[in-house]
């Protein structure tokens, strides 16, 4: 299950559907808005998504994941809208019988979606500047990934 959410992910029972009697391992990834990037103080983050295509591509990534790895279930929610420091931007949860599959699958999902989802993020800095981040550049954005402002 992949979904975009305008609602804060903090208000959602993310893990509930991952509870299974046959699951031995659960790996979760959370990407949060952090207070600094590339030496600049970040004040907030804004996410835009091309919703229809993002949900299609997100669903495709999860389907690939269940084909590539031995997982029982994989889920991902991604925020849109204006986020503050500490807010949850993305959550990935995977359950499997054995732990190595859950780790590999969870990492695959977040790596792929950072490259492929039609979602854009703009960093707002405390000095008043702002910039769109690109995940294909070598340095790191404010949520634990890689990227730098594109303008």
């Amino acid at each position, binding site marked *: 299950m992949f979904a975009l959410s305008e609602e804060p992910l903090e208000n959602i029972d993310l893990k509930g559907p991952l509870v299974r009697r046959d699951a031995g391992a659960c790996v979760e990834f959370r990407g949060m808005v952090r207070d600094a990037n590339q030496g600049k103080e970040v004040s907030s983050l804004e996410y835009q998504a091309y919703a229809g295509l993002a949900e299609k591509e997100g669903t495709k990534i999860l389907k690939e994941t269940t084909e590539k790895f031995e997982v029982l279930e994989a889920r991902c929610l991604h925020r849109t809208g204006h986020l503050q420091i500490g807010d949850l931007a993305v959550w990935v949860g995977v359950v499997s019988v054995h732990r190595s599959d859950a780790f590999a699958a969870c990492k695959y999902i977040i790596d792929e979606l950072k*490259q492929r989802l039609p979602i854009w993020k703009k960093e707002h800095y405390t000095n008043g500047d702002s910039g769109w981040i690109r995940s294909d550049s070598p340095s790191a954005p404010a949520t634990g*990934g890689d990227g730098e402002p594109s303008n």
Partner: protein
Amino acid sequence: MNADQKAVSLLYFALLREQRGLSAESCSTTAATAGELYAELKEKHEFSLSRNDLRVSVNGDFVDFSQTIADGDEIVFLPPVAGG
């Protein structure tokens, strides 16, 4: 309306939305492919992103820039993404 002329819908996101100053528009074009259409728009609206920076989708699917466009298509030029 010229036989080559098509009416397409455009959606803009991120930097393109800011440079265009709007998030969606209808546009009449004689461009045969998505690539030709972007070249047209880039010149007209002075978009800073080159085609190499972009991906393109037509009617909700990723396609190549060589994709032929048809009347009524929804076309999106996607700036470099950064989910997560």
